């Protein structure tokens, strides 16, 4: 990894450097000087044959491996750094040319993985160079010192302060990431309309569009068949990303012609990043595999928080469940219709006049009684807590924030106020650590009246949303201590979720894992909980785009992603609703939600047939929870995404590079949801030459590396298990995930053509941090030479479970004459059934504890 950091040498005031996003200051590693001349240096980047060539005039930086250029910085000379300045009364004044002098003022740091203070290499300004600079007259352009947008004005005390840098990616045609945009997985060339990163509360967002949405992760991945790399632009100000490509617009025929004629031009993607303020601080992640890039990025910003198991189950939400009786009747409805759910959600109307941390005195008069009722069913609740605070001297939260001076200030020094749900509202300064500590303390059971341990939190509107602000957000010249809002805008939501998650951890004395959903986010938000794609709509295209939107988030570390099932705005047809449940059941965060103005849409309101279809989709989710949980355990450990684009697992198969109508869960399940109205069939691409895939419903085997047409009915959810994998399920689906805690496992062993398979089983208590204290079971399941065995992957860990192995299905098996189980020195024979038509061998009741060592031998 290479970090390039460029700052002003002597700025008028310190330029903002994003804090708290990196989990630690990355250790540095000494660079050895390979060669040097008057215009540059060649440095070795550690172990591999990777070098960085730094050229002075013009400044550029090329990262090489062998003879291959992996990435070039400033090869197009778009480096720009607008320095801070004081306003002069005259209309023009003399300054040194920005473009040329940037070089004089750079300071860069290369870092890879080892600490060494000597590695920091400072290029001090060279006076000889400076003498060459022609003094040019800088024109005062409109908007330099003040900008107006509609009726809003933005004062800029230090003038324009943008930074920009370009990156060239030779050999790259596919770039991904930089969420959040409602766009395809593969980013498009932008042609003058760049992707924008600026957290905004967008009303009814448009699809396939580079416009900014609720969150921003300034991380881009670049991929070709040989290598995956990444760029992390650590800047929290408004940011724009321009993408161009020398192959864009070329037809397939044109590309083929190039190939046939041996065109010398290699494909290349050029990217330019521009931020309104802050510094240039960029991490270049060199892979080479996608997994390497994930690990490299995780080493910077951390991994996905390990959610409580129940958070991976089904969530029932609506704006709003009207009162306690309503909550109770919806809860009863799920039992009556035998549909499992774990969380019921309360939106803003549950509060006393949109004062968060309070309850409507009539509609939710006895919240603990309600929460106890849910607890009796082993279910949970999420209540919304937004960051805008009603300005009301009878409201404790407001009074405390005001008296402690915790509100964000306007440019004139008063408390910044804007309009949001409660009317006039203040915005706590979550960038202030004291404020965050205080906020976290508000979640204590004795502070948040009516809260209990099965109440969790949802942070909405944390872009922040300001109804009467420019673009429905905060004025850029609002002030956080000494820092302008413009410098850290995209970080606000990150901090809100951070403080809230901390509150939920603290209220349990650090024992229980929190669950917090956020709408706004930044790089590193994965450490604090879940993200959803905001206020989507009940339209088929919104269902489709939920896949690339969550894939893009997954690629940049945020695995716990979901879209509102059914669509937030508008009313879904029952077909769309069913298809959305079927899709959502296989996406990480599975929550149905609906707008206040739409008719009710609990799963049983669309006739018995649709109720049955939805029930089946939700049940499939619950049965698969052990696998989901295991994937999130790994995401937490390694930073590898849970929901993956196909190319991540098949990086050399160009057919997968732009695919975003299907995805993988882990590496073993391939999901191709039906997202077309009136679909009679879908064509799924099963990757992997020489591999096989098993339909998880019929167990039919299909060969890899083919486009498979699958006829579908309303009940179809095309899902395939990779041959060579073992997936655990709990098929006794009950009312909530907690009810299934002690249930036995069924193992689905899908054999590859070599007749082997591997999988894992991860078990812990499902809700505490005790897994950090080695209280878990982690086993490797492997099948080879007709022997299936369970081996302890974590012998140092301790946990006991009541769960046992109920059944083992071996897909693609042949009929054995005898099956024996060996455990604890005892051998016994297992009964089995063999379905010759699908080659499925079912072993009856091995009965061994899921944490035990055992082997099963087929003879």
């Amino acid at each position, binding site marked *: 990894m290479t970090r390039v950091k460029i700052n002003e040498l002597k700025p008028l005031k310190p330029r903002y450097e994003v804090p708290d996003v990196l989990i630690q200051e990355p250790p540095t590693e000494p660079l050895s000087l390979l060669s040097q001349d008057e215009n540059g240096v060649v440095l070795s980047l550690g172990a591999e044959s990777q070098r960085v060539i730094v050229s002075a005039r013009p400044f550029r930086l090329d990262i090489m491996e062998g003879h291959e250029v992996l990435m070039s910085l400033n090869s197009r000379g778009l480096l720009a750094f607008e320095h801070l300045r004081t306003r002069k009364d005259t209309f023009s004044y003399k300054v040194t040319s920005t473009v040329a002098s940037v070089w004089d003022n750079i300071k860069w740091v290369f870092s890879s993985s080892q600490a060494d203070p000597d590695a920091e290499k400072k290029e001090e300004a060279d006076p000889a160079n400076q003498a060459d600079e022609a003094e040019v007259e800088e024109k005062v352009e409109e908007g330099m010192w003040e900008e107006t947008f509609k009726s809003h004005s933005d004062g800029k005390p230090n003038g324009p302060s943008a930074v920009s840098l370009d990156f060239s990616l030779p050999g790259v045609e596919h770039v991904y990431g930089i969420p959040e945009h409602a766009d395809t997985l593969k980013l498009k060339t932008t042609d003058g309309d760049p992707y924008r990163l600026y957290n905004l509360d967008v009303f009814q967002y448009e699809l396939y569009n580079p416009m900014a949405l609720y969150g921003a992760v300034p991380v881009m991945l670049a991929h070709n068949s040989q290598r995956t790399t990444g760029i992390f632009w650590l800047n929290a100000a408004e940011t724009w990303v321009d993408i161009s490509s020398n192959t864009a617009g070329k037809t397939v025929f044109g590309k083929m012609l190039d190939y046939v004629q041996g065109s010398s031009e290699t494909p290349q993607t050029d990217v330019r990043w521009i931020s309104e303020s802050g510094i240039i601080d960029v991490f270049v992640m060199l892979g080479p595999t996608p997994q390497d890039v994930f690990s490299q990025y995780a080493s910077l910003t951390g991994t996905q928080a390990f959610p409580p198991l129940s958070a991976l189950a089904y969530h029932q939400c609506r704006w709003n469940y*009207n009162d306690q009786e*309503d909550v109770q009747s919806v809860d009863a409805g799920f039992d009556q219709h*035998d549909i499992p759910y774990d969380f019921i959600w309360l939106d803003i109307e549950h509060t006393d006049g949109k004062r968060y941390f309070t309850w409507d005195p*009539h*509609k939710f008069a006895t919240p603990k009684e309600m929460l106890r009722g849910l607890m*009796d*069913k*082993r279910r949970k609740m999420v209540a919304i807590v937004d960051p805008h605070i009603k300005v009301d001297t009878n409201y404790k939260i407001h009074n405390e924030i005001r008296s402690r001076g915790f509100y964000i200030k306007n440019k004139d020094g008063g408390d910044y106020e804007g309009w949001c749900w409660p009317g006039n509202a203040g915005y706590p300064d979550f960038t202030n650590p004291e404020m965050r500590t205080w906020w976290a303390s508000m979640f204590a059971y004795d502070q948040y009246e009516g809260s209990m341990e099965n109440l969790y939190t949802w942070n909405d509107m944390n872009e922040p949303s300001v109804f009467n602000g420019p673009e429905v957000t905060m004025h850029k010249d609002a002030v956080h201590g000494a820092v302008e809002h413009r410098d850290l805008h995209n970080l606000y939501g990150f901090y809100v979720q951070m403080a809230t998650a901390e509150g939920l951890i603290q209220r349990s004395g650090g024992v229980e894992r929190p669950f917090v959903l956020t709408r706004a986010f930044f790089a590193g938000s994965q450490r604090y909980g879940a993200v959803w794609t905001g206020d989507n709509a009940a339209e088929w295209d919104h269902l489709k785009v939920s896949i690339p939107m969550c894939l893009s988030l997954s690629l940049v570390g945020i695995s716990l992603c979901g879209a509102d099932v059914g669509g937030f705005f508008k009313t879904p047809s029952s077909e769309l609703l069913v298809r959305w449940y079927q899709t959502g059941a296989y996406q990480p965060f599975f929550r149905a939600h609906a707008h*206040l*103005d*739409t*008719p*009710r849409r609990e799963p049983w309101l669309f006739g018995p047939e649709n109720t049955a279809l939805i029930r089946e989709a939700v049940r499939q989710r619950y049965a698969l929870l052990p696998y989901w949980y295991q994937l999130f355990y790994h995401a937490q450990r390694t930073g590898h995404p849970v929901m993956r684009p196909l190319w991540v697992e098949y990086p050399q198969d160009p057919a997968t590079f732009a695919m975003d109508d299907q995805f993988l869960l882990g590496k073993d399940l391939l999901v191709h949801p039906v997202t077309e109205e009136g679909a009679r069939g879908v064509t799924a691409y099963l990757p992997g030459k020489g591999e096989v895939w098993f339909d998880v419903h019929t167990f039919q085997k299909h060969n890899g590396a083919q486009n498979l047409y699958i006829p579908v009915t309303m009940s179809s959810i095309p899902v395939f298990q990779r041959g060579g994998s073992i997936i655990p399920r709990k*098929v*006794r*689906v*009950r*009312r909530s995930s*907690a*009810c*299934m805690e002690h*249930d036995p496992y069924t193992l689905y062993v899908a054999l590859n053509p070599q007749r082997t398979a591997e999988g894992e089983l991860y078990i812990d208590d499902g809700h505490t941090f005790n897994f950090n204290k080695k209280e878990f079971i982690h086993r490797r399941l492997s099948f080879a030479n007709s022997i299936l065995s369970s081996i302890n992957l974590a012998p140092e860990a301790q946990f006991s479970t009541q769960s046992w192995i*109920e*059944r083992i299905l071996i897909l693609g098996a042949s009929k054995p004459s005898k099956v024996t189980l060996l455990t604890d020195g005892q051998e016994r024979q297992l009964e089995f059934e063999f379905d010759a038509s699908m080659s499925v061998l079912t072993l*009856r*009741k091995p009965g061994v504890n899921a944490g035990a060592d055992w082997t099963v031998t087929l003879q």
Partner: protein
Amino acid sequence: MRCHIVIAAVFWSVCVDSRKIRGISLSYKRFYRERKSFLCIDGSKMIPFEHVNDDYCDCEDGSDEPGTAACPGGRFYCTNLGFRPHYIQSSRVNDGICDCCDASDEYNSHTHCPNSCSNLGQRERADVQGQMRTLDEGLRLKQQLIEEGVLLWREKQAQLRDLQQVAEDLQIKLEEHRRRKREADRLKEQTLKALETANGGLRRQNSTVTSMFQILDSNKDGSLTVDEVQANVAFIQDEERVLSEEEAVALLGGGHQMDLSMFQHTLWNSLRTGDSVKIKGPHGAPGSLVEDDPNMKAAERAAQREASSLKKVEEAYETANMEISDLRMKLTIDYGTDWEFLFLNSQCYQLKVYEYTYVLCPFNQVTQKSAVGTEVSLGKWGMWAGTPENQYSQMRYESGEPCWQGPTRNTMVTLTCGTETALRSVKEPSKCQYIMDFQTPVACQPVLKQRGIHSEL
């Protein structure tokens, strides 16, 4: 052979029938008589008897695991001695939640379930007794209301007949009054004409024409100009406003000036009728002299008197007709087979829920009044919308006030049996879709014998 099997069966039932199979009802016991093997109840598979309730699902229909959670879609029988027995989904066995009041579903979980069957049984018996009392009382009240309804129906019919009679009478009266008014008008006209003839109306008229012309002709040049018209003439509706040049030109017959003879044929007529323009200031209408005549005055008074009495009769007739159509409309509504719902007509029932007061006026409308007093219509009477078996179990009120960005408000009222007639609850499950629970004796339906309390085992 057959004989042999029967003997074997008897033998087994005698010897080992005492073993209890968990989770089955008495009536299913015959499927679980202990033998070497067990036939799934759907007949699909034969399994060793030890596999019954061994916590592994063997039968497609779940019949081998009536007492465990092993089979998806299976069911567990709660005996619930002292209360009602019932089935629960097998997924609720040992899930840590007490479902059977006899605690039999949580025989292997960490949850301690108390046996609450006798309490529940008592409570249910009390409830059922209460319900039965309510039902008896309700049905008695309903009978009264039916009788009242029939009377009310007759009364309304009589009222309709009366109203129709009144209307007929009024119609006759109306014709008489119309005739009398025509007569009075004719008399007035005659008087006016006679007066004009007798007074040499034409001369007077001419002299009046002349004098009026002179008033208007400020500079006395024998010709009226635009300026003079603007200075002296005004619209009746808006005296203050000065006429525009176009308006003045129009009054001058399209030209910029006019002489006396032209005046007599154009502007004079307008001024004399006095319905659009008039002379500014104290000059008044040109025909005022005629009105001073006592005969004329008497004739006008008579005409006015007749006009106003005609109006009164007309109004009375209209009112009567409106009442008739109103009543007819009401009588076309379906008030139930025995007119038992008729008494609800013209009644209103209200209920306060949080900050709103809801008012249900059956067969008319539903409204919502907020604390600050704004009233919103939640729907007008639409139709009966109950089940095919009992269409009178629900009422639908529709086309209330439109919602912001949405459809119009509507309300579904469910009628339940009770001894009083009252609005019991109001909910708004989705925006602008209201549901009400309305209790009334007339919703009570006679039922066959209430299901008894379980006494099996």
